[in-house]
């Protein structure tokens, strides 16, 4: 009977340990111990007031990424992979609209896009099977112009 109770207790303890419960003080404090590998579904870096500042985790499609939040809780910078495995690095304005996007498309062609108020203003990168360079932009009147190549 005693052994059975101890066994049940031990099993519960192991499960609690796997769920992240430990004897130590939990989160939001600087950790000074070094583990070879720390595994988590999500890593959150908080600022001095405990507010979420950086998230390292996965997006809605299971894609890995890193997100930086400003003091208003808006994502201002992110980098990671899209659901189709293309890589991206995105800088956002205060309304969380993308203003600079550096990413790969299709089979890995690199593209850089500068945007203003949601509209593309500069697009440059390599395109197609021959990876032809292209640079197009939109002038103050919104007319599309190509310095070389096309998008």
């Amino acid at each position, binding site marked *: *009977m*005693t052994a059975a*109770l*101890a*066994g*049940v*207790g*031990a*099993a519960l*303890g*192991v*499960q*609690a*340990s*796997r*769920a*992240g*419960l*430990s004897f130590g003080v939990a*989160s*939001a404090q*600087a*950790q000074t111990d*070094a583990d070879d590998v*720390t*595994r*988590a*579904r*999500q*890593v*959150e*870096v*908080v*600022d*001095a007031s405990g507010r979420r*500042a*950086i998230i*390292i985790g996965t997006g809605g499609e299971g894609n890995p990424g890193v997100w*930086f939040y*400003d*003091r208003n809780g808006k994502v*201002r*910078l992110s980098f990671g992979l899209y659901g189709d495995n293309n890589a991206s*690095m995105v*800088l956002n304005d205060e309304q969380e609209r993308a*203003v*600079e996007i*550096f990413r790969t498309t299709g089979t890995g062609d690199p593209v*850089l896009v*500068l945007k*203003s*108020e949601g509209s593309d*203003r*500069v697009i440059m990168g390599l395109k197609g099977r021959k990876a032809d360079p292209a640079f197009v932009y*939109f*002038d*103050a*009147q*919104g007319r599309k112009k190509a*310095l070389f190549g096309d998008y």
Partner: protein
Amino acid sequence: MRRGFLVLLVGFCAGLAFGKPGVRSTLSARALTVAAAGSRGIFAGASKEGGMVLRVYGARGSGFAVGLDAAGSPFIRVSGVSGSAEGGVAGKLSSPRIDFRRGAAAIMTLGLRAGERGTPPYLTRGAGKDKSDLLDR
């Protein structure tokens, strides 16, 4: 009854102490450091300037940094092998501008004139008096 509870509690504590940690749902901290052998590796946390930064350290001070400055504006900075803040072959992305730098001077810049009507783009090369815009207004 009381003895049974004590036995259960001791067993629970033993399991907690010796149980193999699994995958946590969320790990929360003020700073995150990944230390490579003989170097600083990766750091994520508050920057000296009052923002938040993720730095990847290379040899002799070179490296890669992304984050938000104290005003909340995002930046990406690549430092050259010379070890200076933006020395060697370096690039800096800030909203909405990209600088290609050598030392302190930006020798090519691509960006948008955010304060002007239509936010026209520019692509300049050279510095000082030799600076010229390659795009039509």
